[in-house]
């Protein structure tokens, strides 16, 4: 009698649905997955070790490069850890700006997730729809920090600078018609806040558009309902956080349960799922986009009415302004010290976590009193989620692996660090 064997297939790291560099060794019986073994580490850059060798502020930029689709949230956690060790809190306006950009980041992340999740399951149109909206949000990143992705905008003690009064406008470089330029600049006549407000007004309509394509689509439902089910108990055991946990029906959100910055002053809801399958997680994330949109709106209103400083005035760790330096010796010395050796943090340890778009993103920082951290440990949500990959895909078919990878919202920057 012929002997039947399972089929071992190497899924990735060069695979259109590997979301970067996931290597999944699949053992399959026909198309049914018997075993899945995720191999990670192909994007390891030694962020934690690098951070030990440079002054505190130099590593903020490395945090952007962890989860490279939710940049400012990574920074936020790192900056919070430093502030915890220093025992300071940023000015209230800076806190609102941070919250606003955290939520912009959440929308950015969820849009990219929706785009790739859709593309993985074959809904091509969604990909480009989502990128259309992302474009406006990365423009906001650019307006405040000068870069579209790796912002390095949050600093210990506040944010790098206040929101610009003038939203940068498109100029005709010869490749567009004047009519096009005019349309693109329509919302850019005022400040960044005006531009964002226009965005928040139209964004719910765009989310409706995505939902028209997917939510009641029979094929989409067939592909996601009851795929990758995780029970609430199991989700907690596996260390799930964020939409993965909420999709299973556990109401846990650091923004509500352990409010940081000004989240306690803001009004928003935590969407939770029921069945813990891909479809519920999809619904949770879609609703989170709407909630984030509301939070941004509230922040815009507050920021309009409350001008003020965005950086602490303590020049032991925040740089003095250029103007002050011109005729103030002390400021010059502060500047020199900060930009040569940085600042020292009293010995101690701290853990600061934020509700990152993907879950709980935490930085555990140990200081020995020097100008560099003694140790930085990054708690990335994706790492716990990908560990559950096997559990979620065994018994499903090959096509479902792709759906599960999509629903986990993997980005290798923060898993491999």
């Amino acid at each position, binding site marked *: 009698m012929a002997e039947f064997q399972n089929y071992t*297939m190497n899924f990735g790291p060069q695979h259109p649905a590997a979301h970067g560099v996931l290597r999944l060794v699949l053992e399959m019986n026909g*198309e049914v997955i018997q075993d899945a073994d995720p191999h990670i580490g192909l994007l390891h850059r030694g962020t934690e070790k690098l951070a030990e060798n440079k002054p505190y502020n130099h590593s903020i930029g490395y945090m952007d490069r962890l989860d490279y689709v939710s940049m400012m949230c990574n920074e936020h956690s790192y900056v919070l850890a430093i502030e915890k060790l220093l025992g300071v809190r940023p000015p209230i306006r800076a806190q609102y700006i941070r919250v606003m950009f955290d939520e912009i980041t959440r929308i950015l992340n969820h849009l990219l997730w929706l785009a790739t999740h859709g593309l993985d399951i*074959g809904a*091509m149109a969604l990909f480009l729809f989502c990128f259309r909206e992302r474009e406006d949000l990365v423009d906001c990143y650019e307006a405040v920090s000068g870069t579209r992705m790796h912002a390095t905008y949050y600093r210990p003690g506040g944010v790098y600078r206040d929101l610009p009064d003038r939203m940068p406008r498109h100029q005709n470089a010869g490749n567009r018609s004047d009519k096009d330029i005019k349309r693109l600049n329509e919302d850019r006549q005022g400040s960044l806040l005006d531009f964002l407000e226009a965005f928040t007004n139209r964004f719910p309509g765009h989310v409706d558009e995505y939902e028209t394509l997917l939510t009641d*689509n029979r*094929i*989409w439902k067939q*592909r996601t309902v009851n795929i990758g089910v995780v029970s609430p108990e199991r989700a907690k055991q596996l260390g799930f956080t964020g939409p993965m946990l909420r999709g299973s029906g556990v109401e846990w959100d650091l923004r509500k349960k352990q409010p940081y910055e000004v989240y306690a002053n803001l009004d928003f809801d935590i969407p939770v799922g029921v069945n813990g399958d891909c479809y519920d997680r999809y619904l949770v994330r879609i609703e989170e986009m709407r909630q984030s949109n509301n939070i941004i709106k509230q922040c815009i209103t507050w920021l309009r009415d409350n001008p003020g400083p965005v950086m602490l005035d303590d020049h032991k760790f925040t740089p003095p302004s250029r103007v002050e330096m011109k005729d103030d010796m002390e400021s010059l010395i502060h500047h020199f010290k900060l930009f040569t050796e940085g600042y020292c943090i009293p010995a101690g340890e701290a853990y600061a976590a934020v509700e990152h778009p993907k879950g709980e993103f935490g930085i555990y920082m140990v200081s020995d009193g020097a100008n560099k951290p003694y140790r930085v440990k990054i708690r990335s949500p994706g790492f716990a989620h990908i560990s559950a990959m096997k559990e979620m895909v065994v018994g499903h078919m090959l096509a479902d692996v792709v759906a599960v990878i999509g629903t986990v919202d993997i980005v290798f920057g923060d898993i491999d660090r």
Partner: protein
Amino acid sequence: MAGWFETTFPFAVNLWGMLPPLLQELIIILLQVLPLVIVVILCVAFLTYFERKVIGYMHVRIGPNRVGPKGLGQPFADVIKLLIKEIIIPANSNKFLFLIAPILALVPALATWAVIPVFPGFAIADINAGLLYVLALTSLGVYGIILAGWATNSKYALLGAMRSAAQIVAYEIAMGFALVGVLMAGGSLNLGDIVEAQSGGVTSWFWLPLFPLFLVYFISGVAETNRAPFDVAEGESEIVAGFHVEYSGAAFAMFFLGEYANIILIAALTTVMFVGGWHSAFSGPAFSFMDDTVLAFLREPGLFWLALKMSFFLYLFLWFRATFPRYRYDQIMRLGWKVFIPITIIWIAVEGVMVYAKIGPWSA
């Protein structure tokens, strides 16, 4: 005209007369085949352009616009690129099958055109068993895919081939049953006769009495050509490119050509069998008021109508691709076996009763 030719080029006429009759016939057939094949291939070229434009606009982007005016040169640029690329043959593949598979995928798609009635009274091969010929050739195309997947000796390609094989078996049956309905309605296996039987306006085409079969046939056609949402054999995000994962250059171009030729073919067959082929939509007595107006030309049957109806179905193919997510392989099987086949069987029974009781447009 002919007399002018005979007097000007008497030697040509003599030469023609000297040829054996079998060769004469062959040359005439070749002269008919060549334009048709060229037209089909040109259609393929511009279908890819059309596809990229249509999907582009549906995706809020522009699509190709660099090569030539409005990007119209894009298909030719693509062809040239594909032809000058190297064909890489994997070391452990079966080289003979690897190279013959793309040909097997392309040839049936072109050969089926022989029986399509292109305009009134013309098909290259006006054979009696046209419908059977169509069934036979459209199901041959799958061999190209299966052989490609197997000969490549790659796991991804093999999965693609297995999926394709299972899918085509399932949908071939539904398609066959749908054609049985057409056969009963048209009373002939000859495609020309089937078109004739649908004469007289939109309402007398078969899509109305055979509506379930029409839907099943067209959707099966989408599945048969491995197009979205049934493109699991390629399954870009799952098995990378499925059966043609290792193909490059001209060999890949053959698969590409085959796929698009098949799409055009399915559009043509749907048109011929369900929406009246080259018949005008306004040809029935209901539209006789148009006779004396400027719109009278719209009542003429012809190639124009075939092309128009085909374009509509081709557009549907692109629309599906732009909007739908992809089915999972077992869901496609379920749809084929548990939905389409029962529908066709039931409707054939209903149609049988209708034919027997002489209700319906074919009762005459």
